[in-house]
């Protein structure tokens, strides 16, 4: 399970919603290859019948009473948006076939 190709890096970069220059892709391919080569050592550990640990402490999801509380003010919620309209976030149009706004 060692090594990673440039094509695979490009695929994963797209999955991660990133876009990289050819130089960045080159560097990332090299660095990821070294790291994946190192983590290969895990294959030496016998984990037959060993359950995975996803979390050390929380054994159950804590529940709280279903009590209404003050919601965040919509104006405050969008106050950090780089682009907002009233209390709405502004994004580029996502419907196919229509002109970009």
């Amino acid at each position, binding site marked *: *399970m060692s090594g990673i190709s440039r094509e695979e890096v490009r695929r994963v970069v797209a*999955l991660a919603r990133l876009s990289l220059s050819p130089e960045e892709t080159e560097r990332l391919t090299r660095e990821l290859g*070294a790291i994946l080569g190192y983590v290969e050592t895990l294959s030496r550990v016998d*984990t037959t019948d060993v359950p995975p640990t996803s979390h*050390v402490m929380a054994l159950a999801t804590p529940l709280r009473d279903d009590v209404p509380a003050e919601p965040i003010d919509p104006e405050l919620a969008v106050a950090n948006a780089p682009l907002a309209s009233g209390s709405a976030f502004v994004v580029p149009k*996502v419907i196919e076939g229509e002109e970009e706004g």
Partner: protein
Amino acid sequence: MATGSGPLGTLPELRSALDSGETRSVALVEQSLDRAARVGGALGAFTRLRGEEARAEAEAADARRRAGRSLSPLDGIPVAIKDNLVRRGEVTSCASRILEGYVSPYSAGVIERLDAAGAISIGSTNMDEFAMGSSSEHSIYGPVRNPWDPARTPGGSSGGSAAAVAAGIVPVAIGSDTGGSIRQPASFCGVVGLKPTYGRVSRWGLVAYASSLDQVGAFGRSAADVATVLEVIAGHDARDSTSLPEPPPRCAEALDGDVSGLVVGIPREYFVEQGVSPEVVQSVRAAIEELEAAGAKTREVSLPTSEFAVAAYYLVATAEASSNLARYDGVRYGYRARNVNGLADLYQRSRSEGFGDEVKLRIVLGTYVLSAGYYEAYYRKAQQVRTLVRRDFERAFSACDVIATPTAPELPFRLGERAEDPLRMYLGDVYTVSANLAGLPGVSLPCGSADGMPIGLQLLAPPLEEAKLLRVADAYQRRTDHHRARPPEPA
């Protein structure tokens, strides 16, 4: 006590000076701010100072003290807080361009508790972007420098907080530790750094890196100082679903200097492996002998899975990071790319222009190990190894009270030395990541020096045993002077 812009005293010195009326909080805060600007500026330790706010808070603290209504042992004391904890109405950057202009609509649980205790934050400290790094070099604000030698790293990712305490800018500071990000910079800067048990301190308002590993903790000049901070910041917070219900540990009474009969475990794997410098081994062994002289017993223990901990850690941490950092999309807050061509382009370009190289590397690695076809071989395997790491500690702690190890395998390296070799940087976390994988409390304390640079002893304890952990650290400091050493005053 030094005044003007000299180094601030220790927490007990400042408290007694406040109690006796020898000084006031406004004077301490002024001295701290001045030193943060001059010395902290040269070190790159801060991302932002809270001059106006801190001065006003100091006035209020002095008024409380005059009225005999001081809130806590931290009332009126200047502190510094890592720039990944949010405060209502103020900027948080995580040293990243992608959080450009972010002003939080709420405050972190830790910040609320520090405020309620009367502590005065003089500013936010510099760090590796999103706490990803072991050198505090990956920051849009530039690197943090080590007060003992400005050409070297202070460690990371909480390098600014560690440097601020070492340089006498503040007596105590707050950091976060996901794989050693408090303990390793504490070691490199010659101060004490405590990572509490996972869940001990609220993560509400801590910008997430790897949620099953992240924990907020404290820096100080002594074990007693970090105990004081822990008592303030620990405790249940219903807004963090992983917060433990236990009340804060009662450390003050536990720090009695008595370690007679306590058993210190020495993991045999940690002192024979290649790649640990002889000066580090020598200092840590001498520290263990000092604990024996204080009445503790030692016993060899075994942590056989530890050689695989770094690999397991970087798979788990980056997988969680890839998920946590998916929220930075250029829409809801922070940096947004201009002139984009559609929504996908907005996401891609905002993220690519907003994140630094190390963060991108970790997001891509994490995405890869979670992707179809690799999940079982990498992510699930790492989680199984995590189970074995936990079992190692459970077995070891059935035979000892605390475990002693080096904090870092080598002395602080030079800035830029590891920049082109992420894997080599990761391998330096060999002694610290296991405590995060197992959720254990750990502390690093100064135990010597070599080549003019500090060396750290790491002590680990079972979950929720911070009082015992700090008792051992305090007993060591009662018998030694390493924690009193200070870096040279800058010219």
